């Protein structure tokens, strides 16, 4: 058990190191990329560029720059932005995190419930019109660019049908804090939740249906039915339990990545200042300290959710427990 934990920690450190090094290299060592020139702006005088290069420490060796930045990010935690000088990056990320968490957690509830509902219903009504219609809807969900779907939701709920009873409750775009205005928080997030979840309901519903159909051909299902178990029990206790294993893996990966900032497009379309948007803005202004902070935060979530998935595995799959 202890070795497993140590191994996991080592892996986490390795992946986070790898990602920070990758980001660092993308921004500092790409051929033709010059951060000083970028910060100085277009048509800056050569002296200005040189001054900036010295000022920000870009003239020092790359490993030294990397080391200093990592130390200020993790140990002294006083890393400041390149663009808004004096602005500390860690509090910025911490302020954006609840917004992204609100968005992703709500959507996750929707897509897990929706995905299981779609998958189970389609598997039960296999090869009927209901199954085909559900799978077509799921495929449409998978095929829509999320930002476009968000735009269309905005068009309908903020403009075209905003004055009808259907959408008159929808508040303007933006985020309201859960603690000060819980009802407002819920109302502003319902449509973003639905938008973000649509894609995942499609993916999860399809995967679950395929797994269930496969599971129903297994010997243990035949045994369960031969024993005279009710169809509902066969589905829930036997087929669904096996089929949820890949579901859990996918959920861990998707949830981690989304909390880490991959919900960026949804955040941009709905004007939510979450981690994704923060990362995107940092990337646009080449604010390397901010980029490193957000990316470290993102990879942390990815690695942590991966570890959680492995633990959940042991709980739901007895085969893993033995090995």
């Amino acid at each position, binding site marked *: 058990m202890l070795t497993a934990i140590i191994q996991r920690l080592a892996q986490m450190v390795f992946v986070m190191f790898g990602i920070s090094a*990758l980001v660092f290299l993308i921004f500092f060592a*790409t051929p*033709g990329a010059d951060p000083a020139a970028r910060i100085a702006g277009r048509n800056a005088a050569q002296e200005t560029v040189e001054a900036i290069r010295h000022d920000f420490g870009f003239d020092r060796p790359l490993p030294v720059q990397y080391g200093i930045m990592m130390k200020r990010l993790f140990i002294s935690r006083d890393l400041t932005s390149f663009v808004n000088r004096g602005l500390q990056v860690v509090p910025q990320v911490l302020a954006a995190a609840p917004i992204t968490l609100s968005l992703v957690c709500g959507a996750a509830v929707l897509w897990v419930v929706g995905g299981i509902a779609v998958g189970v219903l389609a598997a039960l009504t296999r090869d009927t019109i209901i199954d085909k219609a559900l799978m077509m809807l799921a495929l449409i969900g998978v*095929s829509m*660019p999320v930002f*476009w779907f968000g735009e269309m939701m905005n068009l309908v709920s903020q403009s075209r049908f905003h004055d009808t009873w259907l959408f008159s409750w929808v508040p303007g775009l933006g985020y309201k804090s859960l603690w000060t205005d819980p009802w407002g928080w819920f109302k502003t997030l319902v449509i973003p939740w639905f938008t973000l979840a649509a894609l995942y309901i499609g993916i999860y519903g399809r995967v679950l249906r395929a797994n269930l159909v496969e599971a129903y051909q297994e010997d243990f299902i035949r045994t369960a039915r031969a024993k005279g178990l009710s169809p509902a029990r066969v589905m829930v206790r036997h087929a669904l339990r096996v089929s949820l294993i890949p579901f859990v893996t*996918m959920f861990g990966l998707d949830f981690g990545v989304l909390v880490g*900032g991959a919900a960026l497009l949804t955040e941009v379309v709905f004007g939510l200042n979450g981690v994704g948007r923060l990362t995107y803005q940092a990337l646009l202004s080449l604010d390397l300290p901010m980029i490193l902070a957000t990316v470290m935060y993102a990879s942390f979530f990815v690695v942590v959710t991966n570890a959680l998935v492995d633990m959940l595995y042991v709980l739901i799959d007895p085969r893993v427990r033995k090995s």
Partner: protein
Amino acid sequence: MADTSTSSPAVPGGIAAGERASRRARRGQSPWVRAWLILRRDRAAILAAIVLVIIVVASLLAPLYAAHVSRTDPFRSNLSGSITIDGQSVAIMQSSTQGLGLGVVPIGPTWRAQYLLGADAQGRDVAARLLYGGRNSLLIAGASTLICLVLAALVGTCAGFFGGATDMVLSRLLDVLWAFPVYLLAISLSIVLISQGITIGPVEIKSGSLLLPIGIIGIIYVPYIARPVRGRVLALRGSEFVLAARGLGIPRWRILRKDILPNVATTLIVYIPLMMALNIVTESALSFLSIGVQAPDASWGTIMQDGQTLLYTRPVVALAPGLAVVATVLALNVLGDGVRDALDPRTKLR
């Protein structure tokens, strides 16, 4: 991920070529013929293929449409122009009638040859741009799929076949890429490369070049494909027919070429439509964030971005390219399902 489980080879390799040919003749069908026969019966997949052909042909005809039907230049802004509808001259940029009456609104859908779907904020014909945009979106999706599959095949096969240190290094590299949210990776690369271009030795790629989004989208999904390929190669390497071939003293590169690669090929082909679908969506997302295809070039993503500012006044500018993306991606996914069922039902994306 879970694709490393036991799997039997689709093509029985390791048998002398002459005998293999005679076996095939006896059964009368090669695996490819068999796959085609299955695919041909899949009505949804055939319908999807027809839809795709229509979309591709329509996109290829973009210059003809612009020259003879819409008769406008879809790459030049046309803020002061006007067109004739029912004998009346109508300005393309009309002064706003809503709100304070300030600013101008581009002409809406005319449902005529000129400005069929209206104009964008630059006064350009949206319908013509949609067709030109389709060319770029499809080109980027196709080319980046090709790059992705070639790289993934190379990495996955090397890691799986050579094992040991090669596998160790390549797998850890894939792990790092895997833990990186794809969009963030794509955005990071795009921001650096698209603003400045890239110079690798004698090759210089300008900042507006289509090669940049193609390369970026091609690279970011490599782990998605390389992992299953590696798993497949690992399973094949331990399979009996490969062990038999090794026992016979057949050189490794020959085993790789004759026994491993044909089996990996089916896995790769299954991914082509699915990856193209994913790449079209990725391209549109990057262009939507204005770090994909650069103006004045069009792609479905850039038109959606143009449409965002006009969302409440002229929604068709954002609606039309979105529907084009959904139709294309849907068709690709349906076709992809069909191809997968025909070739290799075990393969799953992700």
